[in-house]
């Protein structure tokens, strides 16, 4: 290594590191792409492991309910207060129920539920699969004639994609409830009329587009967890790094795809 360094003039060293990081980035994109294809293929081809799917549905879905619920109720309440204040600047406080409902169902419900899942589930998946990689359990599984993609990756991808829309639906309901609570308890709105305004205003597509987003986000969360866990290297530290990368990359991908999906839905 030292000999190779000496052979290259110092001027070219920055160039070389740029080249190396570019290659690294390309390799990563290619790696994620291949991993995605293999993951999706293993979702749709036998053998399937229904027990594993069930286990993941419970782990990813049911156990995420408390965090998702808490996030949603506080966000709905805060959103309500902000819209009331903002609306008050041009005497439009009465649009609060409609804006809260729209903001929650189209944007905040799916994104917040997905971010909570990124923190909770993506990290857990990366840590679990990463630890299995580090202790040769993945190798062991292959020698036991069982494809880790079908046994480990596919159930997680499928479970997260199915479950996040359901969690988002719950987040939508609880988020609206948060806004409603603030409106009724603090801002002296009439409870009945607030709800009627919300229900009259909200359209199927407001909720539906949020649920489609949620399915995409769910896939991203599980994919990033599996990818970083599966490719974890270097023992406990590698597992820690995989966990961090899984959370950060799923959060970024969630925001980016949220923008693109919203653009798509706005023009559709």
């Amino acid at each position, binding site marked *: 290594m030292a000999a190779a360094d000496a052979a290259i003039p110092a001027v070219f060293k920055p160039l070389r590191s740029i080249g190396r990081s570019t290659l690294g980035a390309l390799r990563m994109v290619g790696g994620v792409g291949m991993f995605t294809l293999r993951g999706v293929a293993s979702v749709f081809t036998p053998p399937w492991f229904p027990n594993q799917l069930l286990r993941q549905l419970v782990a990813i879905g049911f156990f995420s309910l408390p965090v998702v619920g808490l996030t949603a109720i506080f966000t709905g309440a805060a959103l309500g207060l902000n819209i009331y204040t903002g609306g008050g600047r041009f005497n439009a406080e009465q649009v609060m129920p409609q804006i809260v409902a729209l903001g929650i169902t189209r944007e905040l419900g799916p994104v917040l539920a997905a971010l909570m899942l990124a923190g909770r589930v993506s990290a857990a998946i990366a840590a679990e699969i990463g630890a299995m990689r580090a202790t040769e359990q993945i190798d062991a599984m292959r*020698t036991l004639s069982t494809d880790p993609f079908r046994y480990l990756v596919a159930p997680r991808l499928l479970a997260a994609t199915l479950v996040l829309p359901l969690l988002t639906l719950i987040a939508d309901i609880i988020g609206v409830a948060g806004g409603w609570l603030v409106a009724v308890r603090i801002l002296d709105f009439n409870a009945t009329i607030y709800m009627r305004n919300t229900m009259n205003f909200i359209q199927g597509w407001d909720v539906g587009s949020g649920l489609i987003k949620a399915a995409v986000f769910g896939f991203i969360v599980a994919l990033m967890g599996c990818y970083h866990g599966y490719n974890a290297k270097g023992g406990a530290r590698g597992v820690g790094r995989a966990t961090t990368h899984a959370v950060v990359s799923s959060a970024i991908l969630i925001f980016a795809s949220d923008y693109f999906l919203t653009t798509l839905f706005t023009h559709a």
Partner: protein
Amino acid sequence: MTAIPKLEWKGVRKRFDGPVLDGLDLSVAAGRSLVIIGGSGQGKSVTIKVAMGLVRPDAGQVLVDGENLIGMGGGARRKLFERIGVLFQGAALFDSLSVWENVAFRLINADGVPRKEAKARAIEALGRVHLGAHVADSYPSELSGGMQKRVGLARAVVANPEIIFFDEPTTGLDPITSAAINELIVDQVKGLGCTAVSITHDLASARTIGDEIAMLHAGKIVWRGAPTELDRTDNPYVRQFVDGRADGPMASAV
């Protein structure tokens, strides 16, 4: 040599950052137990991982019953794995599954054996490694290292494989537990009449479980012979390894 070897490495090469296997040629006859010894970082692990189909070599062939397994499709490879059992270094038990589910993993998930029957066979396999039925429902984390190794051994032998790989079977165990594990390995290999390939740097273990010993250095086999010849040979690599000297043809890894 008329009979086809059970397992054969032919000119296997593999590089990671540097060369790890450098044209490895090695074979083991059916029903024999081969032990590969060598220092750390000399390619022992890669040698058996190539044979297990977990690492793809850059060049060369790995033949099982004369059939090359490199470049085999997924289905054919799964079929091949049915004839192979592996005891991993850290036992590599699935910690989310109970002991019996670990042992019966292949039966349940690959062979489609009903759970009830699989459990019965798992308990029978645990019996073979002297573990009672009471551990069947506990989890790997509740067991000692030696017991985990035994469970790993039970998992390796439950489907009556033709070839078993042992990756450092005694690493991290005290001498008494090591001796017990070695004895179990010999029992199982002789009992099943299968071919065994082990890697280790524990000479006591190598002498107990090996019919033949091969010494790996810098990605090649530098010596091969019976356990009794270990002390008689004047091969400089073997002498240095057996006598445990820091000076010799092999540079210390540190």
